[in-house]
């Protein structure tokens, strides 16, 4: 559905997208993930035929985004960031205008407009001026516009940006329901969003693709280790004894506040579970454990690691974004 090869976009002296290549199969929901300014919007604008790339090429639904721009735009439903709309039009009027531009007409157009308004939940607002709508509703109108001509591909630039939690859930459900009919490329900097609604994640940072895999695989392939948090009481060099357990790469004693309880963080090799071993050791040495908690690497860790460009493998930044 999308084929991007060696795409580069430079703005006066600044490279926004740097030789990226990726591929999206029909029916996939692909999340485009990256911090602000990573080049997500630029790539999406190129794919939707709004602006050309400096070099490289891209095809969407078999059409070249530059040379066959009109056909590309016909097969893409694009929702720009911030959902810019004509504020002096009413919702239904606007959707009719957009539908006509995209080649719909007559009764089938009116029926389709009714469908997308129901789908996005703006039917009650159809007679309201867009200028008087809240951000959430404007976002939905923009989504309805992107859907109106039943495009093969939906390109959504931060579709949940600025929505409240209920609306975000609604949009995610909507995306899931669209999955059977459309290929979706959506961008976001919210990790839960891709973990929950995407088949595949393309992580982009500073204009380069840093990862391209399923959310689960990404978390698994994380070179970083799993963390095991412990709080126990005992005397002696506990850290050394814990580190001797097979599979434990490193054991650190953290600053504890309530003696005799001491806190430890174990860095465990991937694919190892040392909790039983820790328990056995504690029983043997007569330690008392009052907390043991395993922290699996999340997509967030991958993301932070990639964004921070952390060079040392095995170091998970434990703090959240």
């Amino acid at each position, binding site marked *: 559905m999308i084929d991007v090869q060696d795409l580069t976009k*430079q703005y006066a002296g600044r490279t926004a997208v740097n030789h990226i290549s990726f591929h999206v199969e029909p029916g996939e929901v692909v999340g485009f993930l990256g911090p602000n300014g990573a080049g997500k919007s630029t790539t999406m*604008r190129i794919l*939707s*035929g*709004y*602006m*050309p790339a*400096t070099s490289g090429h891209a095809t969407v639904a078999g059409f070249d985004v*530059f040379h066959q*721009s*009109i*056909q590309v*735009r*016909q097969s*893409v439903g*694009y929702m*720009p960031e*911030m959902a*810019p*709309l*004509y*504020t*002096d*039009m009413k919702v239904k009027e606007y959707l009719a*205008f*957009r539908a*006509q*531009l*995209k*080649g719909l007409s007559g009764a089938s157009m009116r029926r389709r407009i009714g469908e997308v308004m129901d789908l996005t939940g703006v039917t009650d607002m159809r007679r309201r001026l867009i200028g008087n709508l809240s951000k959430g509703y404007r976002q939905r109108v*923009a989504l309805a*516009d992107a859907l109106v001509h039943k495009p093969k591909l939906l390109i959504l630039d931060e579709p949940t940006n600025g929505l409240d939690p209920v609306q975000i859930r609604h949009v995610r459900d909507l995306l899931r329901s669209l999955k059977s009919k459309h290929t979706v490329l959506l961008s976001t900097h919210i990790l839960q969003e891709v973990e929950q609604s995407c088949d595949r994640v393309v992580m982009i940072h500073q204009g380069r693709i840093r990862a391209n895999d399923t959310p689960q695989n990404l978390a698994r392939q994380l070179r970083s280790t799993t963390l095991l948090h412990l709080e126990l009481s005992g005397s002696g060099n506990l850290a050394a004894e814990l580190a001797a357990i097979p599979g434990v790469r490193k054991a650190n004693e953290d600053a504890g506040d309530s003696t005799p309880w001491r806190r430890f963080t174990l860095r465990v090799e991937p694919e190892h579970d040392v909790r039983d071993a820790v328990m056995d050791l504690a029983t043997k040495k007569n330690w008392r454990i009052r907390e043991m908690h395993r922290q699996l690497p999340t997509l967030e860790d991958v993301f932070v690691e990639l964004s921070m460009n952390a060079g040392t493998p095995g170091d998970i930044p434990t703090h959240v974004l």
Partner: protein
Amino acid sequence: MRIFWILLKKELHAFFVSPVAYVVLALVMILNGFAFRAALSVLESAPSEGSIVSWTFHAMWFWLSYFFIFPLLTMRLFAEEKKMGTLETLFTAPVRAWQVVGAKYMASLIVYCLLWLPSLFNFKFASWISAGQVEVPDGAMQGAYLILVVMGMFNLAVGCFASSLTANQIVAAILSFTLSLLHFLMGIFVMVVGRKISDTIVDIVNYFAATEHIRIFTAGLIDSRPLVYYVTMSLLFLTFTHHVVEFRRWRP
């Protein structure tokens, strides 16, 4: 072509749901009223060569309206879409740049033509109320309204171009005002220094001068040269506008 009509309808809608069209219409009507009264008082005071039509379009009031119409009608066209970001929405639908430029220009031209309709009534009314004593020559009427339309075509194209250059409506308005004013000042320049320079230069400048065109056409002389001049200049500025809008696609 279908896309063009859809866009044209939308642009006209935008004119008439905002106060712009009505404010401009009201101002033009007021200034036309003053211009018409000024023309009447000229005819009142002494016998005159010119008709009421030519005196109306020579009044300062007419030129006042002439200057503010174009910036007001065109400043919004592209600048607003740029500022709001809707240009991105628009150009990710299957529309071509010429369709957008053409529709916006055509909408402003239609509104512009509507602005002059009430002034027709002034002349008819004068003729009717004076039982035909105030003469309204047909030739002068046709000439005057013809030149008004083609001058409008040119200045609206300039305004479109100005609006496509910036995301700021005020900048667009000032730019189009300045260009229209420069065009007007060519005629004034000849009036002020006309006797001191060679006839060739006067002729050349007069070829471009709006004041001169108005003078000829309101006398009932329909000269093809200004018509060709305005129409080709309109096309030139529309081509510029098209290129500026399309430049987004070609920018390295």
